[in-house]
């Protein structure tokens, strides 16, 4: 399988007419406020370095104004960087010619937008095949692909409707189907589910996870919602004021928040769902009869204890070999948010 990882290196973005003039000053430590006050330019991104693994979901999280939407637009260069590199399969996207960039966007990436960005004058099916149509593929094949993916996202029978005849959740399924129909290795999702109601959002998250199990795309997912980030993200990068303040797996972030800002965030998180048994297992209980699989969340371990009435269990790897043990006490301790950090 191809390596579809994306390497972001030393990426800077300064908004304003002469951004490149101030890059040196910013690299030498000029602050966002100073840049704004002195030169009336806005620092969008500051020295971003992220390795986005192939075939995984990389979440970029931050509040509004943190630069996360700017960040994702550098991957398909909807925004021109001021400095830095975005490497994909050995090529720097930031250096691509116009023609190469167009090809790259057509074949390698697909994007899902917060506000859906569907074409109101096209029917659902015509929206879905918009991306491959641009590639110059014949109408019949376009339609076949589009129908397939519409079915996969549960929109069979709505092909001939217009977008504004659909609810928000359904519209975003069209957006997702459009991106999937493009059959690109990279899927960019810019707050794709943020505009949806909580229940529908959960639903869409499940659809995405389900599809990813089979598709193994490199997904870059932008969100401001930590629960969503933890649920979807194989890796998470947290942005604040245009800079990455912490990155790692969800579990790493929840267990070791880098600063007060992040610990504020993670305080409300359902830790039982995020933390895996591997993180808190010890030697204690390794010989128990009951077993849980490596990678099981603490929530599920607790459920198992409560179902079976046991107090200890062994943790086994994929081959069934015991690699550690877990107790009910340790489980409950780990699930409770620490009082301080």
């Amino acid at each position: 399988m191809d390596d579809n990882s994306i390497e972001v290196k030393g990426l800077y973005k300064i908004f304003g007419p002469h951004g490149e003039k101030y890059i040196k000053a910013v690299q030498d430590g000029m602050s966002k406020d100073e840049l704004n006050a002195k030169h009336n330019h806005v620092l969008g991104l500051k020295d971003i370095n992220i390795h986005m693994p192939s075939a995984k979901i990389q979440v970029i999280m931050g509040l509004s104004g943190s630069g996360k939407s700017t960040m994702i637009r550098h991957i398909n260069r909807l925004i021109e960087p001021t400095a830095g590199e975005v490497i994909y399969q050995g090529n720097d996207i930031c250096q691509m010619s116009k023609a190469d960039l167009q090809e790259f966007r057509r074949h390698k990436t697909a994007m899902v937008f917060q506000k859906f960005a569907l074409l109101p004058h096209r029917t659902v099916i015509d929206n879905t095949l918009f991306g491959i149509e641009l590639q110059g593929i014949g109408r019949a094949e376009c339609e076949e692909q589009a129908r397939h993916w519409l079915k996969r996202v549960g929109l069979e029978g709505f092909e001939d409707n217009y977008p504004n005849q659909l609810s928000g959740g359904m519209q975003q399924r069209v957006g997702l189907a459009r991106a999937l129909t493009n059959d690109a290795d990279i899927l960019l999702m810019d707050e794709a589910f943020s505009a949806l109601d909580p229940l529908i959002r959960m639903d869409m998250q499940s659809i995405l996870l389900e599809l990813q199990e089979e598709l193994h795309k490199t997904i870059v997912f932008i969100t401001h919602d930590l629960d969503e980030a933890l649920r979807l993200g194989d890796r998470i990068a947290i942005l604040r004021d245009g800079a990455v303040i912490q990155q790692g797996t969800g579990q790493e972030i929840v267990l070791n928040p880098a600063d007060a800002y992040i610990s504020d965030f993670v305080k409300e998180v359902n830790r039982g769902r995020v933390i895996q048994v591997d993180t808190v297992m010890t030697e204690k209980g390794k010989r128990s009869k009951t077993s849980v699989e490596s990678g099981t969340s603490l929530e599920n371990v607790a459920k198992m204890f409560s179902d079976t009435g046991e107090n200890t269990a062994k943790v086994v790897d994929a081959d069934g070999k015991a690699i550690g043990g877990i107790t009910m006490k340790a489980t409950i301790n780990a699930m409770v948010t620490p009082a301080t950090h």
Partner: protein
Amino acid sequence: MMGLKDVLPDVMTEFPEMGRADIRDFKKGIDGAFKDFVREYGELIEGFFYPLKIFLSWFERLLVATPWPLMIIIFAVLVWLGARSWVIVVGTILASLLIGYLGMWEDMMKTLALISVSTFVCIAVGIPIGILMSKSDRMQSIIVPILDFMQTIPAFVYLIPVMMLLGIGKAPGLIAVCIYAMPPVIRLTDLGIRLVDKDVLEAADAFGASPSQKMFRVQLPLALPNLFAGVNQTIMMALAMVVVASLIGAQGLGSNVLKAVNNQYLTLGIMNGSAIVAIAIVFDRVSQKFGKRLQKHSETVHG
């Protein structure tokens, strides 16, 4: 009592004019230059418009020669295709019958030929200009004053050069109509394209649309409602210009109105004027309904 004029120095009360002889030389110089231009390039320019003139003459002859019952059927079908409204179809048939009965059939055909071809020319030239204008702010800042000029300068002013270049008849009449009627379609094409949702444009970019794909698959279709409003206005303004066009020999309902004005033929004026209004109403209703039908996607079913 002493007026202000007595107190002020002469230069304040009499405008310091250029001087009669200088103004005369100035006017004569420009006139002379234009005459030289006409002598030099008149034939070339006339040649350029020749196909248009031949087409317009042919189209007019076609409309005049087509038997009237067939013509009315064609009207009805076209109106039905455009508006899908029986009321408008019946109205069109009644209006045509009445106009024909009152002896204005041939003049109406001539006016229709002029209006149709003018509208066609305005659209064919106006939309590309509008697109060009929407693509660059600099272009817009150059074109907008020209459009203002075209719309506000009295038509009689440009009738003179148009006539010197193309003589009298249909072709110069058509040019005069287009100068006045083209600005709305240009303006509204530009506006329509500029109003296209930025999110949708970004999506097109993200999927790798080339500039022309973006224009023809996203921007123009979404600009269509505004563009159609522009076409509608262009037709209305073209109709308003038929009387002026008849001043330089474009025949039709307009020349009858002119004749009525010259002779105080009250009834003739009202009849031909009303026929122009009837055509205007039909064109307006049909193009509006057609424009609405193009936007059936905007009918919200879901709340």
